[in-house]
């Protein structure tokens, strides 16, 4: 089974990369984009023994830095 973990910066944490992307979009002539936040998506292939609690622990221990980031776990139907 595929699991997707979405890691994003917490609200209020400055995202210089998001800001640079926003500026580039403006430079390309796209208007109306008031903010950009960049995060990452991590895909895991797991078997049936991996519980939600285990996935949560993986996120907290490694995949996300809880000081600056939030995460969301999504199980993807095969």
């Amino acid at each position, binding site marked *: 089974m595929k699991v997707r973990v979405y890691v994003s910066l917490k609200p209020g944490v*400055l995202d*210089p990369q998001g800001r640079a992307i926003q500026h580039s979009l403006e430079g390309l002539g796209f208007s109306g984009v008031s903010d950009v936040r960049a995060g990452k998506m991590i895909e895991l292939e797991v078997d049936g023994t991996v519980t939600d609690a285990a996935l949560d622990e993986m996120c907290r*221990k490694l995949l996300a*830095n809880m*000081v600056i980031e939030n995460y969301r776990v999504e199980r993807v139907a095969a």
Partner: protein
Amino acid sequence: MSGFRSAVITFPGSNCDRDMADALEKVSGDEPFRVWHGDADLPERLDFIALPGGFSYGDYLRSGAMAARSPIMRAVVEAAGRGVPVLGVCNGFQVLTEAGLLPGALMRNAGIRFVCREVPLKVDNAQSLFTSGYEQGQRVVFPVAHHDGNYFADDATLDRLEGEGRVAFRYAEPVNGSARDIAGVLNAAGNVLGMMPHPERAIEKEQGGTDGRAMFVSVVKGLIRA
């Protein structure tokens, strides 16, 4: 030949480990142990542990994230808990925050660019084990070379760090967007220091400056008690 027992940890991708070992040896007269990240144990009776700069594990996931979970870090966390002094410079600072030995996190520089130059700093706490060789408020110049040096912590944490005298160094000019210009922080017990600027690259005139020397002198003097 003071009997100073120090260790420099090398992770895959560390690149300031030799400079760190060289600085420790030049100041203390004793060659540091060189410890590999995959080792489970540190040498016994260590006086000092250094986590060097570099790009451990290619900065994968987050700077310092993988190194902080490597086998040797369990031993480093345990030693720090016993009071063994630990210095993390640059990537070493990132590893210390990722390992939970220091609060906060180091984010991408506010200006996006990698910053590689000499920067003026202010010694904000000259009472610590690492900084006793400096004067309070002294201006020093250390090289920096980092992409992720933008120190972040929530306001309550920043207030606590400042209130407890745990800001060791501040930037004396804008460098990377760090909260409250913080360049180096101490843990609550005062035996762990993480900093982005490189004291080990300012030991001898040939390196362009010698302001970093006093840090290693402070440490060696502070630890060699008759």
